[in-house]
């Protein structure tokens, strides 16, 4: 009888320790994710022009001008199909998707997209997927 009690207490203790460890692990993962996002956001804001920064802070997107064609692109917060090509009148022409390798957080992806479009537009679009599907 006492053995059964000891076994039950032991099992409960082990389960409790397991749950605590799992919670701690989840907290660490969540913390490192939010740390990465904050770090990347800070870097993005440093590299944006004052106009782009103001626009991003207000609308969660910013515009860039393609280095080769002068086309305007709107880079939305995100990591997938988050770039709109705009016409002269500001209408969406299509969407583009290209990202840096490595499963980066959104702000890092957006910064790489900005630099690529502003310095090597054709090179960036040559690897991108184009989409005409509406949002």
């Amino acid at each position, binding site marked *: 009888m006492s053995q059964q009690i000891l076994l039950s207490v032991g099992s409960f203790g082990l389960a409790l320790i397991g749950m605590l460890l799992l919670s701690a692990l989840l907290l660490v993962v969540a913390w490192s994710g939010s740390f990465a996002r904050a770090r990347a956001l800070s870097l993005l804001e440093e*590299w944006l022009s004052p106009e782009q920064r103001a626009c991003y802070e207000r609308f969660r997107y910013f515009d860039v001008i393609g280095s080769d064609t002068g086309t305007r692109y709107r880079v939305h917060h995100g*990591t997938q199909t988050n770039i709109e090509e705009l016409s002269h009148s500001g209408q969406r022409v299509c969407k583009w998707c290209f990202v840096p390798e490595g499963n*980066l957080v959104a702000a890092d992806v957006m*910064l790489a997209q900005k630099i690529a479009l502003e*310095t090597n537009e054709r090179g960036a679009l040559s690897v991108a997927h184009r989409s005409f599907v509406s949002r």
Partner: protein
Amino acid sequence: MASQIVMDRTGDTRHMFDKQDRAEVAKAEQRFKELTGAGFTAAVRSGPGEQRIIRSFDPTAEETLFYPRLVGGRRR
């Protein structure tokens, strides 16, 4: 101190070096070669919101940003 900022899953990793220290500059140049050789693009800021791509190590750059090779994203 100059810095090399490498985008990664933690946001970025920063490598600081003293531009007056030959050994540190040589190490930074080696890092530049390794990263660009691995497909990273190197960019330096040339003004507010402006940047230029560099293909070779610039020992005078205060801040060099490296981002990984670009690939097409998910098709929708």
